[in-house]
């Protein structure tokens, strides 16, 4: 059994991680869509940035967020001693 107190602290950090990730997730998709027309005035390598965020930018960040989540949570498991036994 895992101590109740350990679990509470573990869950607190997990929650904080979840909120951070979802905050970034919302900014790069919904936030970027809301200001897309002003972003479009920046053009890099032919790409208007507003369009680019919707087409490739946001989804690249999604992939990085999931990678970060996996690494971070796996470390957190070990830190609190709640990882699976192998």
């Amino acid at each position, binding site marked *: 059994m895992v101590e109740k107190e350990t679990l509470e602290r573990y869950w607190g950090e997990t929650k904080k991680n979840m909120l951070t990730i979802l905050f970034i997730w919302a900014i790069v*998709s919904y936030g970027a869509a809301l200001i897309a*027309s002003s972003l479009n005035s920046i053009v890099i390598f032919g790409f208007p940035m507003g*369009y680019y965020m919707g087409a490739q930018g946001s989804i690249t960040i999604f992939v990085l967020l999931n990678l970060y989540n996996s690494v971070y949570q796996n470390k957190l498991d070990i830190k609190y001693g*709640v990882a*699976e036994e192998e």
Partner: protein
Amino acid sequence: MAKEALDAWRAKLRKIYGIYTGVFVLFVVSLWILESMGLDPKFIGYAFLFGTIGVYAAIGIISRTSIVAEYYVAGRKVPAVFNGMATAADWMSAASFIGMAGALYNLGYDGLAYIMGWTGGYVLLAVLIAPYIRKFGQYTIPDFLEARYGGKLPRFIGIIAAIITSFTYLTAQVTGVGIITSRFIGVPFELGVFLGLAGILVCSFLGGMRAVTWTQVAQYIILIVAYMIPVVAISYKQTGVPIPQIMYGQALQTIEQKQRQLTNDPKEIEVRNIWKNKADDLNQKIKGLPDSWSKGKAEIEEKIKNLPVNDLKRAEAEKALKSYPKTPEEAKEKWKKDMQSAQAMSKPPKSYVQPPADSKGIINFLALTFCLMVGTAGLPHVLMRFYTTPTVREARSSAAWALFFIFLLYFTAPAYAAFARSEVLTNLVGQAFSSLPAWAAKWAGVGLINIKDLNGDGIIQFSEISINPDAVVLATPEIAGLPYVVAGLIAAGGLAAALSTADGLLITIANAISHDLYYKIINPNLSPSARVKIGKALLLVVAVIGAYVASFKLAIIVELVAWAFSLAAATFFPAVVLGIWDKRMNKAGAVTGMIVGLAVTLYYMIGSRFYGVDWFGIKTIASGIFGIPANIIVAFIVSRLTKAPDSEIQSFVDNIRYPKGAVGAGKEE
């Protein structure tokens, strides 16, 4: 499994799929050589179709099983990377593979809602759901609902929602299979459907989830290879650099520049005015219903009477009568649709890269993106895949891998669309009708591209072209001047995408009935081998019903698939997420939440589609935007007004939140 055994297993899988990929590449190359030596393209189509289905069948047979855990969750030994590939294939349907690039072509910025929506859901899935579902560790989502909330009612609602969302989706996939097979080997659509059905069943019937998983991995490899080749070639052709994902910025610039020129072109304005008159005519006819309907019908009948029997014009008029709407209601629906498309064609091309200018457009864009994201994270056939990894740790990384594999395709789709559009604007617009490029003539022949000389000047105007979304991916190999073997490869890829999704859905529905309904509610005394037998029998039944419904080719199916997302978003997602993240959530809250979410979403869907209901201008496709918050708010309020869940459930929730140990209520079998 022990660590060493797991490592050996991973190494073995890498080797098998490495060899498989090598053999597939050799297969394509040798067909290419045969083609250049003069092999009939028809046989290349056959080779791709029967070759790939043969491989899936072989995997299906090797993976046969009658063990419960193997049948339902592939023995829980699918390593993260492979589960990622299987999930990606499970998720990406014929619509992603063939339709999405075309939607981007036609919709410009608005189409990006699909790109972000269908990938962003995986962030929700990875962070909020996947590892906890794996820790819980049973077989289906209704299993989770019962264990978390107690009683049969939550399970029952889960079963109903799973069947509704998955079945419409399944029918669309079977239709997709039928279209691809009939187009590439030239059999009638109905026969194509049943050939496809055989393809679907060989992947799942003998081995359940285990067979589906390992064929899905094989299907992912084929579909991603097939998707990349044409677009790399066209990037090389148009820009000199074979990296489409980076180079299509140039195509975007060409599109914007050419479209600006077209805005004030006198010939374009002439054609747009023709469209405008058409739209006005149709509007008059709709206003004049039902008299205009009977008048139109009488006119055609009169014409037929006055023409001699063998006149070509008579045959034409008879055809027109045959396709004439059967009732005034049907006429209204058809004419309204025609009027809308004529209206769209009567406007100058809008910017390809600018977001919608009006607030209604923006709100709909954001609402649709949100519904697709939440729906993705709530679809039972995707959630189910996270039961199959060996550990919680692997479930997490598997969610990351799944998104990465999906990303490879979605990151490339905008390039397809932009290259195709710049090709149309540069090499099709302004050409004489007498000298159509070969690819345009070919796909116009089968009706996927529509070009009509409306103003009779013999030159193609942009407003005279309309392109079916499917044509973009299908025509790209020819635009890039690639051999026929690549067209065959695209067909094999599209087929792989449709089959893999169909299989995931099929097994979800069959399990909802055999495991959740029959075993868990009606007859809990079933022996393990009888459970697997019933599961297999239901696979067969559901597949046949799916093919039967698909053979009618109902137009509404495509629309229903989009609805499935909103339905899943408004029922499953809140119940599952709150079950993990809100310990105070109880049965009363979850059940009323699901019912209200489902009811509100259905009300708005049907109301806005058929009866003119309109809340804040939200379109039918984004109906979930009302159902999702309704579900969450109702669940929250009701749960706070009723008793907290007992200590057993509370410790169950504690238990699924961290990876260590086993879950009390969720015993392995």
